[in-house]
């Protein structure tokens, strides 16, 4: 590979008080590819995502963007680096409506610096339409009254409105219906084709095998292995997830039993 | 027709026999916390005087809030009063009320507290500096300290927001500071508040166990001082002052734990003020016996000033016989009934 990966993590450690959640994790995501991040429940996927997003600070290790190590002090810095994230816990302001949530922090304004509600409303509706959400009555509805899947759709739609270099989706289809899931996977591929580095966290192996170019497997806070999609079978990935190793892939036998919890 | 009463030096300037067109008088009282008088003695007496003078009186109490007093004044002016008695919470808000009244041609009388810079037509009061002087003098006469060559004393003053408190302090300080052999060990405010006074005095006593006298500005706070002294077995051995002749204060005077209290019979103020109001409403312009100089404007405010009485064990029954406090309030328990009777207070 001649160019640097869009995002590279090296030796990332993260603990919460006495709890070690991530231990020297390495991970790469390339532009134009979908990189899946999989792992058992509690393996540390969301924590890793939050470290990239500046929600958590890493205890040790490097975050390298386009070859340059950076500290991501907060979500603002992450955004400036072109990182856009759909968090697993969605993070919507219940007291605001769909449009307001979708443009939160990036509201459009008129020349008079007042909010350009009309433009935002149109764009928001368009974004939702592309995700096939048919039951949303009005984009002026408060998100508090949305169904689980509708909330998820709003969060996803929010993230694709912007030109980002890295889009991270933490279990974006968990609450989605069949059709909506298809749309999101299609969206993921489309983003990658546009040159975005997409990171997809998912438990759905079918989806992962379908769209991913590369797969990173977290096992109890360690990166068991990061492999190319075409080099592995679904069974191998599942083995990596549940045991930390599969054949000569993954952690050494000692590592996989003694992994930090 | 209303005939002016001559016994208070208020003389009529014109003998009108026509009934007054307006018989409404507004009375603005300040608060409920600094002294019980604003809740009991004053309104009772004022109401009685109003009835005697065939006046319609509206009595309001501002609960310590200048804003409330302002709105009460507006309401009274809206109700059409012709004379407004003001016990201000401070000179500033008092002045605002008086200028408001003036705008609407309502005559104001400063009652008990002088509104510095105000425009009241009269001032009816006790002389607060005199009250303070009496307190100081009476304290030096207390049996616990009388004749002692060296006396250590501490002071607990009233609320710094109350101009009267400053005047009381001016009075007693003028006496005590000149008293030979008297040393002031500490000086704090009790804010007219029992709990504050108690905390303050607890610490004072801890710091200065050799206190002989406590110059405390009124009975409410004196009670707290006595509580603390009693816990130390010192009640009755340290001279304690007071003011207002409250039921509790009189109890303490009888029990010998408080040296004296200052009795300011409201009649001295209320009777004069209401008669004055009646005369004003009748179109007269009475001449006051004296004047008091407004400290800010230098205006000589026509004034009626009454003299306070020092109450010691010797004349402790006086406020009860006057009807200023009831015997029931002073003697609520069997033990106190005995004490009362021994001191000449007769149960009804």
């Amino acid at each position, binding site marked *: 590979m001649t160019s640097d990966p869009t995002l590279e993590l090296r030796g990332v450690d993260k603990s919460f008080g006495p709890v070690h959640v991530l231990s020297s994790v390495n991970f790469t995501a390339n532009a134009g590819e979908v990189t899946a991040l999989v792992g058992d429940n509690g393996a540390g996927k969301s924590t890793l995502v939050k470290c990239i*997003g500046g*929600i958590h600070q890493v205890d040790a290790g490097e975050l390298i963007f386009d070859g340059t190590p950076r500290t991501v002090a*907060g*979500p603002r810095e992450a955004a400036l680096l072109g990182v856009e994230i759909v968090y697993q816990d969605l*993070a*919507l*302001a*219940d*007291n*605001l409506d769909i449009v*307001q949530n979708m443009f*939160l922090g*990036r*509201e459009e304004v008129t020349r008079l*610096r*007042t*909010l350009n509600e*009309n*433009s935002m*409303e*149109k764009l928001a*509706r368009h974004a939702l*339409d592309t995700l096939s959400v*048919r*039951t*949303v*009555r*009005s*984009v002026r509805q408060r998100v508090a009254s949305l169904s689980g899947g509708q909330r998820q759709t709003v969060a996803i739609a929010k993230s694709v409105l912007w030109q980002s270099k890295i889009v991270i989706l933490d279990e974006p289809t968990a609450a989605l219906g069949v059709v909506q899931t298809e749309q999101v996977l299609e969206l993921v591929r489309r983003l990658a084709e546009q040159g975005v580095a997409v990171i997809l966290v998912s438990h759905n192996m079918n989806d992962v095998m379908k769209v991913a170019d590369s797969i990173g497997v977290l096992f109890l806070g360690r990166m068991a292995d990061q492999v190319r999609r075409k080099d592995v079978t679904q069974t191998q990935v599942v083995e990596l997830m549940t045991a930390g190793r599969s054949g000569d892939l993954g952690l050494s036998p000692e590592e996989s039993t003694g992994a930090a919890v | 027709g209303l005939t002016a009463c001559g016994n208070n030096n208020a003389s009529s300037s014109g003998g009108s026999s026509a009934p007054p067109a307006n018989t409404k008088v507004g009375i603005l*009282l300040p*608060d*409920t916390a600094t002294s019980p008088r604003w*809740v009991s003695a004053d*309104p009772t007496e004022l*109401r009685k005087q109003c009835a005697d003078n065939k006046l319609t009186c509206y009595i*309001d109490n*501002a*609960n310590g*809030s200048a*804003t*409330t007093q*302002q*709105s009460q004044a*507006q*309401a009274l*002016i*809206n*109700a059409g009063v012709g004379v407004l008695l003001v016990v201000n*919470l*401070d*000179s*500033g*808000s008092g002045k605002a009320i008086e200028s408001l009244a003036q705008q609407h*041609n309502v005559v104001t009388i400063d009652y008990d507290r002088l509104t510095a*810079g105000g425009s009241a037509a009269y001032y009816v009061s006790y002389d607060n500096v005199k009250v303070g002087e009496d307190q100081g003098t009476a304290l030096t006469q207390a049996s616990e300290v009388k004749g002692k060559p060296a006396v250590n004393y501490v002071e607990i003053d009233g609320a*710094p*927001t109350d*101009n009267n408190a*400053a005047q009381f302090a001016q009075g007693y300080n003028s006496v005590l500071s000149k008293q030979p052999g008297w040393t002031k060990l500490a000086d704090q405010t009790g804010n007219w508040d029992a709990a504050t006074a108690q905390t303050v005095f607890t610490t004072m006593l801890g710091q200065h166990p050799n206190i002989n006298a406590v110059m405390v500005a009124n009975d409410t706070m004196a009670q707290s001082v006595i509580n603390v002294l009693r816990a130390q077995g010192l009640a009755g051995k340290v001279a304690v002052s007071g003011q207002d002749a409250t039921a509790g204060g009189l109890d303490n005077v009888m029990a010998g734990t408080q040296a004296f209290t200052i009795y300011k019979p409201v009649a001295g103020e209320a009777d004069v003020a209401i008669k004055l109001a009646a005369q004003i409403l009748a179109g007269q312009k009475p001449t006051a016996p004296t004047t008091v100089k407004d400290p*800010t404007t230098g205006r000589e405010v026509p004034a009626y000033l009454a003299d306070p009485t020092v109450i010691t064990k010797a004349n402790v029954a006086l406020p009860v016989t006057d009807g200023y406090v009831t015997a029931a309030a002073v003697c609520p328990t069997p033990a106190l009934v005995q004490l009362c009777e021994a001191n000449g207070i007769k149960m009804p």
Partner: protein
Amino acid sequence: MSAQTDDLVKQDQRGPDAPSEGLGALGAYIKDYFGRVRGGELGSIPALVGLIVITAVFSLVHQGFLSAYNLEALVIQAAPIIVMAMGLVFVLLLGEIDLSAGTTGGLCSAITAVLILRHGASWWLGLIVGLVVGLLIGFGMGWLRARIGIPSFVITLATFLAFQGVTLILIGGQGSVILPDNSPLIKLENSFVPLWLGWVLLALVVVGYAAIKINDALGRRRSGLSRPPFTVIAAKVAVLAVLGAVFTYEMGVNRNLSTNAFFNNKAQGMPWVVVLLVILFAVWNFVLTRTRYGRHVYAVGGNDEASRRAGIVVSRIRISVFVICSGMAAVSGIIAASLLQSVQSNAGAGNTLLLAVGAAVIGGTSLFGGHGRIIDAVLGGLVVAVIINGMSDLIQGANSAGYEWVVTGAVLLLAAGFDAVVRRSRAT
């Protein structure tokens, strides 16, 4: 955009053929409005109804409650409460509290007064210094909250106490500082807008309101979005115009009750503070509803973690609301000083703050953050002022203070209870 979706989101967007005027559109609009009300989006209805009911009751039991004189008294008494409540709305929107707003107001007005009176400053210099101190205080408290992480209850409890002390020290033992008679500061609450100017200002307000509403509607039409029928806009403008005209007319009546033939000075026209109130309302309402900043205030109040993740600098928003609140508290303190023509050494202490917070809450602002509007401060402040004013004349006599407290508490509870019962339909 698929046709199907268009169908399903038809409430959002009307095709060019859909009637956006005429009886049909009006009917749909009204039906939708009542649907929303039934669904719990009550807006100002409870506070408004409460205000009307209390006013009606007081004017029944109490002759002259609605006289021009008392109406003016009401307005000038309500002004400091409303202004303080407006500032508090910002703090409450973030789920914070400022217990010291009252004493901050007291302190700032004390500074202004002392500067003018004891140091010979001109009134505007005193005013500016007072306001700036207010803003700095807010900044300090906001900083302690946002950066150090002390709970705002404790910070503002500490400043509530401390500022009382500072004011006391400043004003000293005299109990109050009296503003000069001719000071423009006194004029705010005690001088009146000339009658003709009152009508001109009213016209400006009505025309401005109409222009904004129409412009909004046209903008939405241009963008192909649904918009309220013009009949509705016209109706709203008409209501505003009529209410404004009634008020302006009432305030034009000579309020001087004096029958005395010697004086002939009239008291007529609305107090200048009304103009200030209108301006403050317009400005803050604009800020909250039409700027990014306002949007971010709501967002942080609704979900501060989500806001942080959206790149909003939460600490900056948090500090800013304290600055606004303390600044408005300073304005409120100065209005109160204008009302009393003086500053007390205990200015802003006592129940000042509690009543202002009560006003915002009765108006509909939540203490838990995320929900509140500037109109809440206005309506709630009027409710509180009506209660206090109505009360101050209702009960007389020896223990009047005690009974007034009791009745004030009871009426407050009734107002809030009414409000709650109306709103409760929201909960299923």
